[in-house]
């Protein structure tokens, strides 16, 4: 049957055509295409690798930043704590001092009040004494006009004195 008998002419043409096609395409198509694809793949791989590197670098930087931030935060906290302590100390110191001062002022005031009081008392006493003497002189002048009256007076005074 014709169907399964290969014809020499067609084998010849197929071989020639295919060989020439393969050689032409190999030189002018397959080589540049595969070359370009390979170059592109390499560049893509490189880009991916460098992106990965950049990512890692970024991560490192981020970690560093985080660390720095944490440090800064800790430092700030420390400073704040110190400041708070200082403030409290200052306040308490100031309070103490103020208290002390107030105490001394109060003490002084009390003292001076006491002194004034004493002075006033002394003055009053003096005045009372003076008045008393004056009154007494007058009274005495009147009362002690007689002997008897004088004795009575003395007795009475002596009685009073013992009572005191």
């Amino acid at each position, binding site marked *: 049957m014709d169907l399964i008998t290969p014809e020499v002419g*067609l*084998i010849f043409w*197929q071989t020639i055509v295919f060989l020439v096609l393969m050689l*032409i395409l190999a030189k002018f*198509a397959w080589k540049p295409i595969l070359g370009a694809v390979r170059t592109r793949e390499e560049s893509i791989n490189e880009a991916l690798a460098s992106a990965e590197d950049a990512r890692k670098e970024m991560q490192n930087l981020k970690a560093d930043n985080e660390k720095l931030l944490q440090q800064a935060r800790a430092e700030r906290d420390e400073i704040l704590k110190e400041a708070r302590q200082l403030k409290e100390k200052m306040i308490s110191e100031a309070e103490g001092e103020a208290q002390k001062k107030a105490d001394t002022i109060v003490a002084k005031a009390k003292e001076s009040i006491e002194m004034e009081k004493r002075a006033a008392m002394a003055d009053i006493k003096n005045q009372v004494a003076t008045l008393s003497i004056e009154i007494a002189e007058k009274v005495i002048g009147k009362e002690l006009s007689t002997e008897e009256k004088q004795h009575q007076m003395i007795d009475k005074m002596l009685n009073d004195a013992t009572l005191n």
Partner: protein
Amino acid sequence: MQPNLEPIILSRTGTMIAHKSLKIIVTFTLALALLPFNAFAKADPQAEESKEFNPTDMIMHHIGDSHGWHFFGEGDSSFTLPLPVILFTDHGMVTFMSSEFHHDTEGQYVVEKDGMRFVNYHEDIYKLDAGAESVAFDEEHNVLNASKPWDFSITKNVAAMLLTVILMLIFFFGLAGHHKKNKNAPAGFNNILETLVLFVRDEIARPQIGEKEYMKFMPFLLTVFFFIWITNLLGLLPGAANVTGNIAVTVSLGLFTLALILINGNKDFWQHTLWMPGIPTFVKPILAVVEVLGLIIKPVALMIRLFANITAGHIIILSLIGLIFILESAGVAGISVPFALFITILELLVAFLQAFIFTMLSALFIGMAVAEHEHH
């Protein structure tokens, strides 16, 4: 058990619906087909009796090679692209256009060239002996009064092959041109081509041949893949040639694979083929025979697989269409045209599949020949 029931019921209903719609389609098609069938069957068949339809001739004519590219029409009024006939006779080379036979393939019309007379008998060209008017055969179909010159004509298949070549050159020069101009990935059609090139590289060449050697065989694998695929697809067009379904074409392609195996087979390969190590000496010659046979059978299987698959597809389509003329009823078209359409769509898949299989197995055989064996 209870929860497992639901998917079963669902899938059942699914298939039931599918069955129902399929039934409707089949009934509809059959009704369409059979109604006119009855009407035509009663028509008078005598009108067409003079010209009996021979499906074998029709199919063989369509899948076989020819010296002119026939598109449509009959006899002298047909539209046929004339192609050059190139013959090598005892008296040198003779060339003329196929149109000089005036569409005759029954060996009746004699073409005289350089004092020699030629006839075209069923697309075989015979040189008539002196005095003979037409070619004659004996019972065993041996030619009596003519000789067969070497026929290197540009036949329909060669022309179709050249069409594939032109397409491939346009496609891949385009892609190569893109790559020369810029470094970016191509877009559109070039992108499709590049994807296919990468498919051949990454799915066929690399896994079968191995990282070290595959680049050497890429030109062959790419060319053979695209050549077979594009030729297969072109072969599906109406009026096109059955190139990859021609045994001569596949023989040539298979020989390329065989040549690559023989040329590139390394020391290990030849040792394992001719003098298998690690077995008793008296078995070695027996195994050598088997191995050498296997070596030849591999490309032969490639040749036959491609040839048979493509030819079978064409024969099925032509037979389905031929049914219309065998049963002499236009109504049969209602069945055979949808079926032929279905087969044609299947052939689109087969076109790719056969190109892939041929390339894949070529790569596999080459890979086996160049593989580095671990030394025991």
